[in-house]
């Protein structure tokens, strides 16, 4: 059943894989992030970190409050390189680039908002 529970939506990592990493000896979120990429995706750990920290706590017996957390880095939400410069987001015809390639979430007509919840 662990295999069906997705802990990290950005990188498609299941609970079973997290538990396997813990058994391999990776008992910190920093290490799990670097090996399995949880925390490197668009949500930057906002979704998966609390879940993984809970698993680390269960596995190691250390309270969540004592666990180290990877640094938070800018930008807070995904901002397009063109947006930073105030460029319009129009015009997506480039040689060698299929139009669908530039937007992983292009299937939606709504503007993209990264999955995160604020405290």
């Amino acid at each position, binding site marked *: 059943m662990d295999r069906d529970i997705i802990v990290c939506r950005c990188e498609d990592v299941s609970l079973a894989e997290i538990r396997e990493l813990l058994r*391999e000896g990776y008992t*910190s979120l*920093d*290490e799990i992030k*670097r*090996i399995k*990429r949880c925390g*490197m*995706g*668009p949500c*930057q750990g906002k979704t998966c970190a609390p879940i993984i920290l809970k698993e680390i706590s269960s596995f190691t017996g250390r309270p969540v409050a004592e666990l180290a957390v990877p*640094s938070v*880095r*800018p*930008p807070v939400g*995904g*901002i*397009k*390189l*063109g947006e*930073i*410069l105030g*460029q319009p*987001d129009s015009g*997506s015809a*480039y*040689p*060698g*680039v*299929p139009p*669908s*390639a*530039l*937007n*992983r979430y292009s299937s939606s007509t709504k503007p*993209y908002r990264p999955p995160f919840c604020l405290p």
Partner: protein
Amino acid sequence: MKNRASVVIIGGGVVGCSIAYNLARKGVRDIVLLEKHFLCYGSTGRCGAGVRQQWGTERNCILARESMKIFENMNEELATRRDIELKQGGYLLLAYSEKELELFRKNIRLQNRLDIPSKEVTPLEAKEIVPYLNTERLVGGAFCPTDGHANPFLVTQAYADAARRLGVEIELYTEATGIRKKSNRIVGVETSRGFIETEKVVNAAGGYSVLVSKMAGVEMPVYSERHQILATEPVEKIQGPMVMSFSYNIYCQQTPQGNFLMGYGDPEEPKGINTRSTWQFLETMAEKVTWLLPPLRHLRVVRQWAGLYNITPDKQPIICEVEQLPGFYLAIGFSGHGFMIAPMVGILISRIITGEPVGMELKLDLERFERGELTPEPAVV
């Protein structure tokens, strides 16, 4: 933790782990590696993940070429649990002046002589390799198809796992706080978790190398400097090679995961240990990359971070036993190109430590600076 080791390696990046593995492979026992945080906390874990063989000196070309051969076989040799993600999509170097192109031509002749399959490309040919490349002002370029990308975390972990299997003890969250000497010989390393008796210490501390050498009373004309970098969200594969330019000052590649990694060197960056991020970098990076690679303006930046280049006067590493303090070894000062030669550095340092012939002319000793024998490498970003 052991209180006695035959060799203590300070630094858990790719260089430290490569040295640990190669030493253990030679049969050296009781090796301890000390890492202040977790593996790859330093420069290895922050780098652009590029591996290239297009260098301007014979020695660098050989180090890179031989390291690439090791990368190509690493999954097998180290029996890795996770593929190191070697992607050989090439490095496309861009020249914006005749002078720069001439330098590329000279380098290509050297590289070809050493069996590195690089070649000159015209702007049109560059556009065939990266169709959406903006070729305005481009005079020409160089391309080597076997250059590319490898995953720094997984490579380091592969070396660490293999080293552990051979008996190396890797102590994470353990900081080296001092090196004790007696009559100009090392007697041990003081750490945050106790003292380890040893006569041999390897400084593989990357950005913190000067601090570690100071512990041993060794001065080095080396400094650290922040370099910033960012990653975008992952998208379908649209770019084969790493695109890089020394004169335009940029590097940008798409990883096998689909994210774009990119950076440039800030000429005004002050020396020092600083890994914070700035909005100025984000803005300048956006300007530079959207001009050169227009489709990227539609990509979302998910994270920016920074790491340290450990820089020497000739931008070449220091790989040696220190003359004034036998038993103290240096594998530092890679000036932004450590990851790509780490496989060979591990082999060379392990030969130096065990007293075997090094097998190639290095001239990378610490004392070369005093003698004025510098061999500057022209091809650096």
